[in-house]
């Protein structure tokens, strides 16, 4: 039955997307870019916004005269939250639509699914979401946060300013929380936190009954040491989690929760009054005060014709990725993959928090880490901002990846160079 359902969904989605977008056939001299975000299925809730953001960026670029004298054209496909379908759609974008670059994916599973396609067909993917690291591909640029650009600074903040000594690592049961928690556990233990002061808890996708777990957290927090929760709970499950926290009276002053997947968009479905003071770590908040951000928000509201639509961190990552690509293409004078891969390294573009982000040789970017506290109006207030941090693809806190580095410049051109053995090719891809 399940397979049947899947297959049906895939067929339906495929039918929908082909009919929807074949109509927009382009005149010859446009440059096409692919937008690969789920518009239906479970991930539509997060990814649709990114699709809109990409369309807005393309429109803005075209207002400025396009790129290399040609207009940009976005080719939107719907992989329907189905990981294998992501690979098929990526192949279609590259081979049939001949796009110059693709902006897309949200979950790590979808990224892993398209990675071989991009390497085989030699195209470029910009991936705009925070992820667990432990990967560096020649054809992918990771403009979201690596663990050292989000998780580790957040834990440092709690330990230093709030004096937290006991940690609950709560996450959804899949690759991003598992890897992040592994890195965090190693990091905390290297800082002298005892193993019995770390509690790790996983829940299924879309978990909605948090009564037992919130009680467990309260119990764990009654050991006489300051306790905090580090949450890698994903998407939909957050709303019932926060509602349960609020109802059981877990206040941020007693047990603060710092989340890595909760942004303005997720809070939109919640009454945040009882949650004031709980934290999130990102590289961007809508409340950041900078001219670039004010302009971005204004354009966004005008584009969506809705001044209540919030902006969030993955949108900023998409913004940085898109602008970096535009700059690299202009520098290279062509959209040819190899030329762009060469010219993009070292490209520096403004980010929305008032600084610049640079594309590094490991295909990650530099960005500041912001810690924000939830406010009653559903926005975040920045309580700490670090200087720009370079994304670290291979974690320094995991034994089998601490010797690995990635450098895609010539002559090294390696995504997993082992500095201990001096050879390319260690763990992973």
């Amino acid at each position, binding site marked *: 039955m399940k397979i049947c359902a899947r297959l049906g969904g895939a067929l339906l989605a495929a039918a929908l997307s082909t009919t929807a977008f074949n109509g927009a056939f382009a005149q010859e001299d446009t440059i096409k870019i692919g937008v690969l975000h789920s518009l239906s299925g479970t991930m539509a809730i997060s990814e649709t916004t990114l699709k809109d953001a990409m369309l807005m960026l393309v429109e803005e670029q075209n207002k400025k005269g396009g790129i290399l004298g040609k207009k940009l054209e976005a080719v939107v496909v719907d992989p329907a939250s189905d990981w294998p379908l992501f690979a098929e759609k990526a192949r279609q974008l590259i081979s049939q639509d001949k796009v110059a670059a693709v902006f897309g994916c949200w979950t790590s599973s979808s990224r892993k699914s398209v990675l071989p396609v991009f390497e085989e067909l030699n195209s470029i993917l910009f991936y705009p979401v925070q992820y667990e690291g432990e990967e560096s591909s020649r054809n992918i640029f990771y403009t979201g946060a690596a663990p050292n650009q989000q998780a580790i600074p957040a834990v440092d903040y709690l330990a230093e*300013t709030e004096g937290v000594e006991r940690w609950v690592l709560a996450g959804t049961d899949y690759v991003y929380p598992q890897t992040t928690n592994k890195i965090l556990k190693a990091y905390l233990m290297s800082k002298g936190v005892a193993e019995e002061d770390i509690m790790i808890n996983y829940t299924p996708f879309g978990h*909605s*009954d948090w*009564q037992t777990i919130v009680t467990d957290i309260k119990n764990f927090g009654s050991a*006489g040491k300051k306790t905090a929760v580090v949450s890698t709970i994903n998407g939909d499950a957050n709303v019932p989690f926060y509602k349960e926290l609020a109802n*059981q009276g877990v206040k941020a002053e007693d047990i603060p929760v710092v989340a890595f997947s909760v942004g303005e968009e*997720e809070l939109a479905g919640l*009454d945040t009054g009882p949650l004031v003071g709980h934290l999130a770590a990102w590289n961007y908040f809508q409340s950041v005060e900078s001219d670039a951000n004010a302009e971005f928000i204004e354009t966004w509201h005008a584009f969506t014709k809705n001044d209540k639509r919030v902006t969030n961190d993955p949108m900023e990552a998409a913004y940085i990725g898109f602008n970096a690509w535009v700059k690299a293409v202009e520098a290279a004078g062509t959209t040819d993959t190899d030329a762009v891969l060469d010219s993009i390294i070292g490209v520096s573009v403004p980010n929305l928090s008032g600084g610049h982000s640079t594309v590094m040789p490991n295909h990650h970017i530099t960005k500041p880490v912001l810690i924000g506290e939830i406010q009653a109006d559903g926005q975040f*207030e920045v309580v700490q901002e670090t200087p720009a941090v370079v994304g670290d693809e291979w974690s320094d806190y995991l034994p089998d990846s601490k010797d690995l580095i990635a450098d895609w410049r010539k002559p090294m051109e390696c995504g997993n160079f082992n500095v201990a053995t001096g050879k390319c090719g260690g763990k992973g891809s």
Partner: protein
Amino acid sequence: MLIRIFSLIFLVLASAVPPLAQGTDPKPLIDALAKANFKQAEELIAEVAATGDPRVVAPLEAFAEGDLYARKADGVVFIGRSAGSQIALVDPLTGAEAGEVAKSAATKIKVNNNLRRAIRASLGGLTLMSPDRGARLQAATAILGAPSAENLQLLEAALAKETDAEVKTRMEEARAVSLLSSDRSLEEKRAAIETLAAKGGRKAISVLRSAQSSVDEGLKDDLDKAITAIEGELALWDMAQNVWYGLSLGSVLLLAAIGLAITFGVMGVINMAHGEMVMLGAYSTFVVQDVIRSSAPQLFDWSLAIALPVAFLVTAAVGLAIERGVIRFLYGRPLETLLATWGVSLILQQAIRSIFGPTNQEVGNPSWMSGSFPLGGMMVTWNRMWIILFSLSIFFALLVLMKKSFFGLQMRAVTQNRRMASSMGIRTPWVDAFTFALGSGIAGIAGVALSQIDNVSPNLGQGYIIDSFMVVVFGGVGNLWGTLVGALSLGVLNKFLEPWAGAVLGKIFVLVLIILFIQKRPRGLFALKGRAVEA
């Protein structure tokens, strides 16, 4: 010019209220907050509180709420209330109005968890003697979390005057906490441990455990004994709490499944669009609340009561349309029904996504659905309690409808023997249609309740469809009592497995157990004869 007028007003006001004799003037301290970082602000808070001036309560409270602003022009600190694009400024000490400025002309003074904690503790000291009983109780609770020698003296002074029994107990507990970390005599500390042991609960354990490392050697035994005693008591309450959680989860399952118990259980239609009926119910709640918010905000606490009939009518109408439009052509062909209703579910989901957007919609909790109350050693959240009561009342209302009403009689007649019922003059197609509408309407009502604890998004229904089928099949197709027993026992089973196996494995175990059970008893807990069985 404006600024000059403001400062003039301010000067006049400031001179009108002379500073109290007992300490320094808090005004410069409060103004210093404008330039302080978090660390300095924490010290300033302590200094402000140390002035002992009762007027500082207002600015401190405002600071904790994030309502303190510094005017950019002169750095003077005010309490600000947002009024459209303006901020209305109020003098922090006197409460005198100081005009409105544009949002960009004032900087909000940032506050974080640490500062909020510090403020609560300081406020506790300031309001301990307040004439208001609630304020004293709150103050004692705040001090409970911030033991210090000064607070000990404050508490003892307050205790001497206190007459209210509940406040007195709370103060004594707070005194015990502060006493443990002070340099008082062993005897007094022993008494303090006893007070805390008598209080019991998580907070007491937390305090006693943190005292374990610093306390004098002679008290170690008393401390351990107190901790063991509290833990023993808590273990029992944990058990009760678990049963309660199980019932609560069971009631959610019951809510989700009860509509399906009619469409699938009684009629035998494999209705894959059942989850979407729940989702439509939740969206009806959202729409109702939206209308109430914009046109009659005072009715907000009634929004759920208003949403119930709306959701019922909307989903029943959709259900009726589905039955008349699709399902009636497919009776007796379960595979086609399954595919068709599944297709309907996709259409409904995408329709909602197109109308309301793919993101979560905010459905507010009325005040009577928020928060929790203690029951012995466990916490009972209001929303869960209402949902348990609500699902049980829906269940019994449905039972009465099925057993006592004429419509119920017709429904059962058609279910048990369609042809005979038809020969007796019952218009079976219409009975089918209304039965399906009833099942859908009840799913919609369930959606109203579930909107209180879950996301209101187009995917809401998907999360419940598998669970609903599980409950109905486990309980016995066609039997309402089976659905009740099935839902509650699955809920309790799940909650007892969860602490032991984790949420992920727990769920898998439950599924495996159900599969084994169905192997043994294919017709579920309470098997019944009916069209579903014959088909």
